[in-house]
């Protein structure tokens, strides 16, 4: 039997709608996937998580801090394929509302940006790493996601 596909599911700044959609896809697809997929890292599903030798990493959310950017780079270094999941990962919106604020509103929230060491701007994943594939949508487009995962499972 061929090795299971080693998968990681990560989230950064977002509402985790695609993560929820993904857990709902398990309702009808897990029987088909369970012999083909191994979750190496999925905080929502398990406690014992690693970032190593990942075949595919799905990354939801945008990047708001240096710390997140560093973790994203670590994921990239350890993943053969990195997939940006959902609008925030692909475009930094809607998590990045603050990028669009006028000067007065920016000034109003500045003390929090400073207190929690936010980056100056909320960024999409592609600002920091090479993104191999994207599944757009808010939440992610379910059909496109299934199309992608099925194509990887076939190869």
């Amino acid at each position: 039997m061929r090795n299971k596909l080693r998968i990681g599911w990560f989230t950064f700044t977002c509402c985790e709608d695609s993560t929820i959609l993904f857990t709902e896809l398990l309702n009808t697809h897990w029987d088909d996937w369970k012999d083909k997929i191994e979750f190496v890292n999925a905080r929502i599903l398990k406690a014992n998580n690693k970032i190593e030798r990942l075949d595919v990493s799905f990354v939801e959310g945008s990047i708001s801090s240096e710390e997140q950017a560093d973790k994203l780079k670590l994921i990239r270094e350890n993943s053969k394929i990195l997939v940006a999941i959902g609008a925030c990962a692909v475009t930094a919106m809607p998590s990045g509302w603050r990028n669009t604020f006028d000067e007065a509103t920016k000034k109003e929230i500045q003390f929090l940006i400073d207190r929690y060491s936010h980056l100056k701007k909320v960024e999409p994943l592609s600002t920091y790493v090479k993104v191999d594939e994207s599944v757009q949508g808010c939440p992610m487009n379910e059909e496109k996601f299934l199309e992608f995962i099925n194509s990887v499972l076939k190869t």
Partner: protein
Amino acid sequence: MHQGTFDLTLDQITKIEGHASLTLRVNNGTVTNCTFEIPEYKRFYTQAVRGKKIQAIPQMVARICGTCSNAHLLCSIHAIEDAQGIQPTKQTYQIRRLLNNGLIIRDHALHLYVFVLPDLYNRDSLLEFDESNLEEHELVHDAFAIKEAGNLLAKWSGGRSVHAPSPTIGGFLTLPTNGEQEKLVLKLELIREKVIKIIKIFEKCEFELREDVLFSALHDDNYDFLGKTIITAENACVPARNYSDHLKHVVKPYSQASAYTYEGKIFIVGALSRMNLSKDGLHKNTKKGASSALALFPSQNIFHNNLAQAMEILHCLDDSIDILSQLEIKEEKPVPYKLKAGVGTGVIEAPRGTLYHRYTIDHEGTVIKGDIIVPTGQNQIAIEKSLWDFAQNNLHLPKEKLSYEMEKIVRAYDPCMSCASHFLKLKIQQE
């Protein structure tokens, strides 16, 4: 033994909604610090809603949280309808109730099966249950069947189970299609025995942590999650729109979320509070099907939040079967309205507890100010109290075990960090 001095840090609590961590500091056998931290980065929705037209608000604020999205959607719609003086039709109320029931079924099942059940069976993950063991095999498939039924109910009534596209101010943009009701009832009937099984499992579960805190929930006579009055265990009765007057914002500098007390007291919202305060309103079939579990309430055991959620799944299922059996969708447009200036409040019971939205709107329908109070912020202080008390009484445990048990307590509260990190409460944080 850890009677001495040590630090315990758990950077990433798993099997919860979003990112959270906890820190414990023990000095000479006494807990000197215990913090539940929400490092989720703020997305500033409270600022982002300003200047936006009310028609755009519900879909916008649904994006505060993936799993509770339909609760934010409905709550913001209620707030805007309150400001505009809109009375939705009975059909709208029924479809919204089904949408909310679908959310409760799906979200509670995610929490109970995917987050909590592995702790009861000593597994790392539901997906690592032993499929050759009949009991564990069935539980995995029960989980998927119940979540899927909730999903289908939300999809039919709102168009999608996450960020439902159909609900709008005054009604629905797209109505559910007739002809599906019978099939949905059948799906719900098929999972009923599975739900009773999970109620039994949590009824027998011996996890226990008693807390002497205030319980608070939005109340109505038929447990519809959309009531009009807040009640507390002290029998206070507050009109929902005045709710925020009773809450005090408490700054937790290490957390990106806002914490609250209720009239200066530590309090809890969520399924445990609802069951403690409103169990008389449960569906009659639920009362019958879960009679021995029902007798355990009111309860101060924090872990009974899990049991209360399991019972709410059954209630939402029985309630939905009733509604669907009599509901024939008739064509109707959203209630028309003429824009006016004003302040509107929406309060609903989201899966994790009381959710509050308030908007100040000008005469052109532009939002001037928005306030949102989420369940996890209201529970944050109680979560820390439980962790602190447990740690102080269990310092004899090996560090790893202590950490694991504290993680279980956090899971029992079912916090949602996406919700908790959406905004800021400016006036206090500037102090």
